[in-house]
């Protein structure tokens, strides 16, 4: 029994030493928390702000600096603005870009379109790039974020910034993969419409929804179509008692098709 206890004590001491060393012998560094998916507000953004966003993405979420740094794991990007023009004429170039901006965008989405000599994957003779597609799962940049990084790259390499700030990101999905230039198809179902514009975030219908705005469960009983139309297009014109101004977005009129507005009004007026 004595031997047994000695062994137990010895084991506990050993484990205690390892745990103690790990806790107190070395500095405890708090690892960065998982990155948050950032919501972009591009509408109010200046070009400088957009470039700064690109820089943040470049140094942060994009994880670009892991390789594009002074250690030379990946090509230096300090002059990429000038170099890109030459790349387009390079016989090894396989992409479809016509301008520097397009080239840069393409290099982020399809890195193997042009591989700088000496930076290819081992054994592929510089035809395949080790860089991931920044829009894919791991980094997961949206279209707008890619544009911001391109703007930053152009700015930081001293080239002219040709990127335009993408607009209409209001209804941006997390993956942002929709093509923003294409108009949305009109929606005929009022419930889908309400879901698209997330009305239920503030308004309650049938016991479900938020309490920031008035309950709409029986709104048709007390308000007519004209009032409702005005309430959607110009929310601050009349404020129901007990609610605050400036809570509802004012751009519903821009975001909605006319037909959709009518469908929505029909629906709301019918809630009695």
């Amino acid at each position, binding site marked *: 029994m004595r031997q047994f206890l000695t062994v137990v004590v010895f084991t506990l001491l050993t484990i205690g030493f390892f745990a103690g060393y790990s806790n107190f*012998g070395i*500095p405890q*560094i708090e690892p960065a928390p998982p990155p948050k998916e950032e919501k972009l507000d591009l509408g109010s953004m200046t070009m400088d702000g957009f470039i700064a966003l690109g820089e943040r993405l470049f140094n942060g979420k994009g994880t670009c600096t892991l390789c594009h*740094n*002074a250690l030379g794991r990946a090509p*230096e*990007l*300090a002059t990429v603005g000038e170099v890109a023009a030459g790349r387009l004429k390079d016989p090894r170039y396989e992409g479809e870009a016509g301008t520097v901006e397009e080239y840069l965008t393409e290099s982020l989405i399809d890195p193997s379109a042009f591989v700088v000599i000496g930076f290819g994957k081992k054994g592929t003779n510089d035809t395949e790039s080790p860089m991931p597609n920044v829009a894919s799962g791991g980094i997961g940049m949206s279209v707008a974020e890619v544009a911001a990084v391109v703007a930053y790259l152009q700015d*930081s390499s*001293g080239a002219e910034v040709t990127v335009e700030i993408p607009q209409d990101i209001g209804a941006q999905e997390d993956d942002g993969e929709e093509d923003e230039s294409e108009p949305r198809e009109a929606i005929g179902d009022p419930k889908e419409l309400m879901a698209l514009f997330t009305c239920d975030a503030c308004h309650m219908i049938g016991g479900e929804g938020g309490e920031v705005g008035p309950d709409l469960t029986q709104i048709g009983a007390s308000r007519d179509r004209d009032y409702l139309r005005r309430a959607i297009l110009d929310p601050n014109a009349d404020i129901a008692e007990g609610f605050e101004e400036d809570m509802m977005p004012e751009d519903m009129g821009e975001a909605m098709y006319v037909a959709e507005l009518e469908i929505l009004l029909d629906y709301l007026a019918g809630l009695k």
Partner: protein
Amino acid sequence: MRIPKLLQAVLVLAGVYFGFIVVFDVILDAVIPSSLLVMYMFFVTAGVFMVFTYDEEGTRELVAPIKALVEDPSKRVWRNIVFVIVPLAAGAGTYVQMQPSFEAPLELRTIHPAPPSTAKIYGKRVNLLKLENPFRKLEKEDPEQFRELVEEGAAVYIENCQYCHGDKLDGNGPYAAGLNPTPLNFQDVGTIAQLQESYLFWRIATGGPGLPKEAAPWISSMPVWQNFLKEDEIWKTILFLYDYTGHSPRSWGHE
């Protein structure tokens, strides 16, 4: 006379311990960090223990004096002395360790981190990898004008920098003692002699607040000189730093 094993072991440990201190702190003039020395000594002790105890005779000889001290009736006086001293020493050690001190807590901090490849200085984005001192070429082309520029740089230095970095550029100015981290000693071969001029330009222009993330926490009190000096004044000061110390900046060419 043969030295008893226990004494041998103690001598070896003390020898290694003071050996480390003498070699590092005195001969090489590079202090051995106490945290590291503790771990070093832990494993040296383990090694000494291993060598002295792998066979029975060695172990017996090593342990014999300790056993005798505890068990031998004739060693009563010694035993009592040791039994008093050991707890006292342990208590004193604990007291010293736990005593609150004025020393700031340890921080892992890289004072001179790798520079970014570009930085925004004077409202422009400059490429630090390619940036050169615009006056450096005059050293060969027009030595006379170069001397003048160095003089002007010296004036800037005396007016702004020497309070901390010292009039001998040895990091020992009147205010140096109050600063932590200490102002850089430019005379040391390990500082500006190892750096490119663009690095100095970046550090001077953006100061402590311009340190990148890896240098956190940003406790350096170096001011952001781009807010106080003109661009050419910084470049001239850099000329002066190298001229006075006799160092030459690290060149662009690959070694």
